[in-house]
């Protein structure tokens, strides 16, 4: 029977000391969840290995849905991966629960410059004053639009001057019920919908201290209302039922909707569809009514398991993952924007058919993604409740208040 190399390594580390010797051969495991990024990760690992021949790195790919079950099981049992991807959504949970290690001592002794990364990402992984992750990537957003449909309706292409009212006006002109074409698509997907508009009017999802909900603020309601109005007031977007049945991105790349708010990870998929490659382009995300461009951005970090047997080697690897070179490798794939600032050009040039620069230009407005220790407890509930507003059964105001009160209950239970 085959014995996996990293099982052997785990057995070694259990019996001998934690391996400080530089010449000792060590195998690290590195857990990630996105199949699309495996190639870039493997290239990073091979370059790292050529610089550190004594450290082997094994990639473990587990799909998103199972990644967290597996990680929690393995970390609890003390056999988890040494280094793994972390998202802002779970960072506090793992940091306060002792699953990931604070890295301040290593950062200080290696003189790593945390200022090199997009501040929103660094901030999100700095928990109770300690750094729990080396920023990996950051999300930008833009307005994807169908040039063919714009031309047919004789509407000017969107540009950086656009605000909400321009989107609404254009969507009304582009909507063509006879042809089954909608001007806009308003999915009920926090990250891709109201997390982009709430900050533009000064609203918030969670207070900066993470202790109370922002859903009951009038500005937050206004940011959410933008989306429901598209369906229930202006009738320029498919309904919630339709966007649940059919992926809104597929609607865009099939010419069924003329505009959609897009994430920086999506151009790759748009380009994979011939129609999308030919007719879609990307404009800057429209600003709020007063020109505010702030938005909530998730971004990943590489974290070190608190229980790793190979702290030194894991730190060497983390440093490389946070390096300019690793940023460059990731950027070239066009899949993600590296969190390392000033290295987004390679991303912007990865797909010349689209204006990817708009995602990069937007990064300066990024705010840390709303999160608390148990983010899922209130985030999932919000998504569940807002369906009522999306279908027009209840007003955004009513639902928001109900979401806020449940969220405040959940947050008050989090006290350590």
């Amino acid at each position, binding site marked *: 029977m085959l014995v*996996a190399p*990293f099982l052997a390594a785990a057995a070694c580390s259990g019996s001998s000391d934690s391996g400080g010797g530089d010449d000792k051969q060590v195998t690290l495991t590195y857990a990630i969840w*996105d*199949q699309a990024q495996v190639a870039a990760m493997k290239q990073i690992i091979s370059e790292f290995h050529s610089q550190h021949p004594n450290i082997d790195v094994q990639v473990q790919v587990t799909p998103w849905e*199972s990644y967290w079950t597996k990680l929690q099981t393995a970390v609890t*049992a003390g056999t988890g991966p040494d280094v793994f991807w972390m998202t802002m959504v779970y960072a506090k949970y793992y940091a306060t629960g002792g699953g990931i290690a604070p890295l301040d001592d290593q950062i200080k002794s290696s003189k790593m410059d945390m200022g090199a990364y997009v501040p929103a990402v660094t901030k999100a992984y700095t928990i109770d004053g300690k750094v729990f992750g080396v920023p990996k990537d950051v999300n930008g957003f833009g307005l994807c639009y169908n040039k063919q449909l714009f031309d047919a309706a004789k509407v000017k292409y969107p540009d950086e001057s656009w605000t909400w009212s321009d989107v609404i006006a254009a969507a009304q002109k582009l909507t063509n019920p006879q042809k089954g074409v909608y001007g806009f698509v308003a999915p009920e997907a926090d990250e891709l919908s109201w997390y982009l508009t709430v900050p533009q009017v000064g609203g918030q999802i969670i207070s900066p201290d993470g202790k109370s909900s922002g859903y009951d603020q009038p500005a937050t309601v206004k940011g959410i209302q933008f989306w429901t109005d598209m369906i229930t007031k202006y009738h320029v977007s498919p309904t919630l039922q339709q966007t649940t049945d059919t992926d809104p991105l*597929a609607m865009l790349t*099939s010419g069924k909707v003329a505009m959609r708010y897009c994430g920086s990870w999506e151009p790759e*998929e748009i380009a994979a*569809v011939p129609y999308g490659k030919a007719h879609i382009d990307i404009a800057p995300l429209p600003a709020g009514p007063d020109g505010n461009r702030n938005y909530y951005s998730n971004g990943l970090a590489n974290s070190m398991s608190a229980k790793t047997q190979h702290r030194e080697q894991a730190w060497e690897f983390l440093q490389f993952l946070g390096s300019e070179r690793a940023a460059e490798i990731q950027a070239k794939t066009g899949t993600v924007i590296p969190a390392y600032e000033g290295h987004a050009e390679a991303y912007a040039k990865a797909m010349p058919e689209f204006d990817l620069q708009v995602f990069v230009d937007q990064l300066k407005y990024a705010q840390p993604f709303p999160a608390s220790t148990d983010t899922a407890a209130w985030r999932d509930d919000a998504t569940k409740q807002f369906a009522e507003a999306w279908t027009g059964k209840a007003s955004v105001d009513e639902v928001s208040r109900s979401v806020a009160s449940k969220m405040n209950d959940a947050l008050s239970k989090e006290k350590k």
Partner: protein
Amino acid sequence: MADPIRRRRVRHPVAHLVLCIGAVFMVGPFLWQLSTSLQTFGESVSVPPTFLPHSPQWSNVTTVFSALPFGHQLLNTTAMTIARTVGQVLFSSLAGFAFARMQFRGRGVLFGVFLSVTMVPYQVFLLPQYQIMQKLGLLNTLVALFLPGMFSAFGTFLMRQFFLQLPQEIEEAARIDGANILQIYWRIMLPMSAPGMIALGVLVIIWSWNDLLWPLVVNSDPRQMPVSAGLASLQGQYTTNFPVLMAGSLLASLPVIIVFIVFQRHLMSGIAFSGVKG
């Protein structure tokens, strides 16, 4: 009574219609899967959906083999399923026999404790079972895939119910002829409970072939994973290459379909046999 032939004629079209509608619902998803597996990515995500690929993309099938150690994973799935099925049928029938046919103190209480296991959701066992595998040094091995699945409280319950139905007289006759308890189990009871074992076996095979969470958690090396876990890792966080995923799923379900076609007659006769006997 008066005109049985006519009655048949009236009844059959309705029955056929119902069966045809049922067949469409059953076969539809398979055909859809087959069609998707031969489409380009663009076709697979188009709205309205593409029913037939413009030109069949056979390369999707080869992509499955290059993206995954697919043959190896298929062997893992097969080995895992055989070990679990043999284990469950053997151990559950032994335990079920004891609960049904043997008198011992605390039998009722013990059986109650047993049954309580079936009332706990599987996820609760995940961590303890993982830790047992870890202590045994079996993480990331083929053995870890099937070891905890070789026994089940449900199987024990099923087999116990089956043994309870068998007539007491046969057991007594065997005892008079000088058979000991193991001989009664092995020579008398087991052959008579073939339909029960087949039913349990089929359930275990289906469950094991599709089992995802446990293999995904306990093993990390793709070469030590079954097909279910391998296919799951083809899903990206945002983008999934649906045609390749469907091609892989089709290949993964092919062996089960072949097994069913080959053994269909045996499965049916087993069920029919039990009906007549009972």
